[in-house]
């Protein structure tokens, strides 16, 4: 299911951060590959991913290293323990959000 761009910008930003972390949880990856991995789940453009990666780096949720690849340098991103903790926090928050969502939906019916 593709999540639309119409969701609240701040909410979307928070979700995108965790989505990128979740991709990196599987293993070290690079920009283009992260976009490809997320393309089936959430809409993310090249220009959106870059500041996400910068933010995750500044928060020390990920680290980066440059690796020589086919005669050029490619940046590989790796999740840190702080990043993994962030994912776990998101999962807990999401479960609470789901409970609130069910409550609101029930009250609205």
């Amino acid at each position, binding site marked *: 299911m593709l999540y639309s761009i119409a969701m609240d910008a701040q909410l979307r*930003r928070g979700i995108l951060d965790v989505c990128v972390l979740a991709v990196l949880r599987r293993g070290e990856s*690079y*920009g*283009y*590959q992260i*976009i490809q991995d997320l393309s089936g789940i959430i809409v993310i*453009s*090249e*220009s*959106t991913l*870059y*500041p*996400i990666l*910068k*933010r995750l780096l*500044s*928060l*020390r949720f990920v680290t980066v290293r440059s690796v020589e690849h*086919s005669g*050029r340098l*490619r*940046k590989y991103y790796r999740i840190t323990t*702080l990043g993994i903790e962030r994912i776990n926090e998101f999962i807990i928050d999401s479960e609470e959000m789901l409970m609130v969502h069910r409550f609101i939906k029930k009250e609205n019916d």
Partner: protein
Amino acid sequence: MNPRKKYLKDLRVELKNLGSQDIDGIITYVNEIIDDQIETGLSEEEAVWNLPHPDKAAREFNDSFSNNETKTSKKEDKTESKKKRHGRHPALIILTFPLWFTLIMLYVSIIITFWSLVVTVIVLPIAFVAGSVFTGVFTPASFMAGPQFGLFSIGAIFALIALAIFSILLIKVMIKGSVGVSKSLPVLIRWVFTTEGAE
């Protein structure tokens, strides 16, 4: 101009409102994306074609930076980037008191020494100017003693004026250095009592 160079050039122009550090980072990143697409079998033209138009891409980059979380302004390019800091553990500060206190006191005494030198050197141009005036007053008398003495007096006047100018320039440099050293004290104190890290 090949399509990649043209695209990156146009993108750089559209990103002109960001700091140079951010622009360089974005250009490097887009370059990498193009190379990765080429590796999947696309041509350079196709890889560039897949990217949004430079002005649209720049708008998206700018919008993404608009919350200022990661944007470095042109002004911040010239200064040290400000990282989030929080206080060190009080126990650590207490335990290391002999070390940081001595360090700060040493730094303060260096600052005082710098400024004392400045004050001392300020006297120099005054002395040189006074000397040149005094010599100028007695130059006619020197000529009476002999032309060589008069010429020597005139030479001395010019030399004293030159020394006065040189000492004023020296004072300017010393003041600049003393101000720089003094400004570093708060940075040192901040380093002693705080540390970087995610909040």
